[in-house]
């Protein structure tokens, strides 16, 4: 399969009053054409910073891309100037954000907000751009697209606004859509609709999606492959089946255990991962998860674990996978009901 996006050893820090916050520490992942990659992790794990740096949206300073390559179609866009990035953004790579309530300009008509991107990237008359915008609105399921072009964001519900955001993002047929927690701010019925819309558009337009979320349920709906992030590193990555049915990293176990299930025994308490994420101002010397891990060994506190290959593309960074480590039985994980979304 062809890699459309290939991020290698990405390291991003923020220079703050208190010191250097190492938000992302050597993250590598790739995205194949037309697939959905989910990056999962709790708040502060560095997932948002990772994709915002792919988009070149982080304010510099305080953010600083310390090292790493971001290969888009084989070209390192980390080296691009702001001008070059402008040509890429919204045309080749698009992004939607967490809160549709604040992501649209409150004083500009919806139509104009969609047309803006189209007119920037494609040589279209304003009439043609308008036609394209109307087409996009109906594609994302906004009724009466023509009259809704003339309305302002506050006249739409949250779900509708997220649809408009998707219309803006896909107006120029981007090949990559970066979605930063696109459904977190929506209520549950809206979440399902938006996820379904994204799946449909992926199918019809062939857009590859990087989906950032902390919701394993959303991941089950959407992802072809999954990367689990913790403390600025990817701790485990693999196909959706591998991560859900054969996870190797204790953090992934914790994530899956802390997910409520309809089919699981109701008497069972929802398990939690004790403790809180590490302070990235002083990241731990060894494994970032060591302090919260139920299987922590001496070595975990001393050395950061390398990435162990399990099969093919399934990798996990955990000392338990070292041949010298004691064998550990994985705790019982409830069965995730994966619907049609996951193959």
């Amino acid at each position, binding site marked *: 399969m062809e890699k459309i996006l290939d991020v290698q050893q990405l390291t991003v820090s923020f220079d*703050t*009053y*208190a010191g250097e*916050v190492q938000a992302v520490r050597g993250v590598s992942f790739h995205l194949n054409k037309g697939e959905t990659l989910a990056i999962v992790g709790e708040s502060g794990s560095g997932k948002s910073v990772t994709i915002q740096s792919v988009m070149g949206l982080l304010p510099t300073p305080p953010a600083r891309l310390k090292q790493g390559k971001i290969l888009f179609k084989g070209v390192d866009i980390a080296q691009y100037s702001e001008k070059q990035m402008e040509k890429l953004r919204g045309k080749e790579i698009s992004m939607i954000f967490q809160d549709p309530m604040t992501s649209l300009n409150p004083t500009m008509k919806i139509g104009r907000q969609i047309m803006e991107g189209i007119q920037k990237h494609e040589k279209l008359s304003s009439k043609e751009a308008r036609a394209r915008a109307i087409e996009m609105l109906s594609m994302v399921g906004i009724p009466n697209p023509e009259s809704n072009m003339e309305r302002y964001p506050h006249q739409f519900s949250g779900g509708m606004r997220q649809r408009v955001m998707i219309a803006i993002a896909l107006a120029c047929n981007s090949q990559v859509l970066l979605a930063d927690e696109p459904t977190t701010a929506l209520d549950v019925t809206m979440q399902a609709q938006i996820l379904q819309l994204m799946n449909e558009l992926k199918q019809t337009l062939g857009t590859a999606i990087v989906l950032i979320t902390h919701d394993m349920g959303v991941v089950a709906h959407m992802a072809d492959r999954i990367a689990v992030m913790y403390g600025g590193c990817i701790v485990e990555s693999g196909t959706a089946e591998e991560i859900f049915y054969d996870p190797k990293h204790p953090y992934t176990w914790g994530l899956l255990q802390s997910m409520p299930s309809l089919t699981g025994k109701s008497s069972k308490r929802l398990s939690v991962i*004790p*403790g*809180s994420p*590490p*302070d990235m*101002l*002083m990241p731990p010397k060894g494994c970032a998860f060591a*302090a*919260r891990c*139920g*299987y*922590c*060994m*001496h*070595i*975990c*506190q*001393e050395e950061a674990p390398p990435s162990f290959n399990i099969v093919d593309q399934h990798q996990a960074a955990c*000392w338990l996978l*070292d041949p*010298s*480590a*004691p064998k550990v039985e994985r705790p019982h994980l409830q069965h995730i009901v994966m619907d049609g979304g996951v193959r």
Partner: protein
Amino acid sequence: MNSTSEAKSANKKFNFINKAELQHEAIVRPSLSFWKDAMNRLVKNKVAMLGLSIIVLTIVMAIVGPWLTPYSYNQTNLSNINAPVSSTHWFGTDTLGRDLWARIWMGARVSLAVGIIGAIIPSLLGMVIGGISGYFGGKTDMIIMRITDIGMCVPQLIYVILIMIYFGSGPLPIILAFALTGWMGAARNIRGLVLQLKEREFVLASRALGASSWRLIFKHLIPNTLSILIVSMTMAIPSAIFYEAYLSFIGIGIKPPMSSWGQLVNSGISVFQIYPSQLFIPAALISLIMLSFNLFGDGLRDAFDPKLRN
């Protein structure tokens, strides 16, 4: 033998750590309180510290300045009028031969006192009234807000002038006039803040846990509005100084032989084409002290701004 010991130590490395040894909630970063953090940032802000130094220096001079010269601020000497800056009269003398050094630092006492007290009293008054209005809401709120609506339609200065004429000139009437007219803006700000805070989750949570009104006010509302209040109070000082100077300048604030910076500018202006220093010295001091308070206030605001916290 060597390899076995290595294997042994390697195995030891792979031993599990006793759970009890693990500290889940170890706090790595030294925790800074909000105020300590703000103070740290304020101290690092050179411009704000420069402003503060000038303020402190001016206050010290206002206290000791008049004693440094043998001349008194109201002692006239018609044989030595309009004297230039010299080693006996450090800032010269005015049209009645009064020593300007003494008058200026005497004036500083009045201007600073009026400025600082005249800023703090209306701010506190506004804080109490606005807090009551926002916290209790309903009819109380409506009545207070209508009063401020109407009060704020008229420039404060019109009322200040009327009140000044009613009570006569002098520092106390000025402060009184400020207190009567200046609380409205502060009350509106505080009311807005309290209304916002009341809807915030931590206040709702506290209320849901059965916290009393007193607890809500003292543990949540006041601490969360205090920084904004301090900043607005600091910013109110230069405008109070300005108003005092303005009133004295148009002749209804402080009148001679009493001295204030505005009054000195007023006297200086009549002779400034011939003796410019009589105007420039007080004018420069008013501008400098207002500048310092503004710079310091800006620094305070930046220091308290939660968005700048890391």
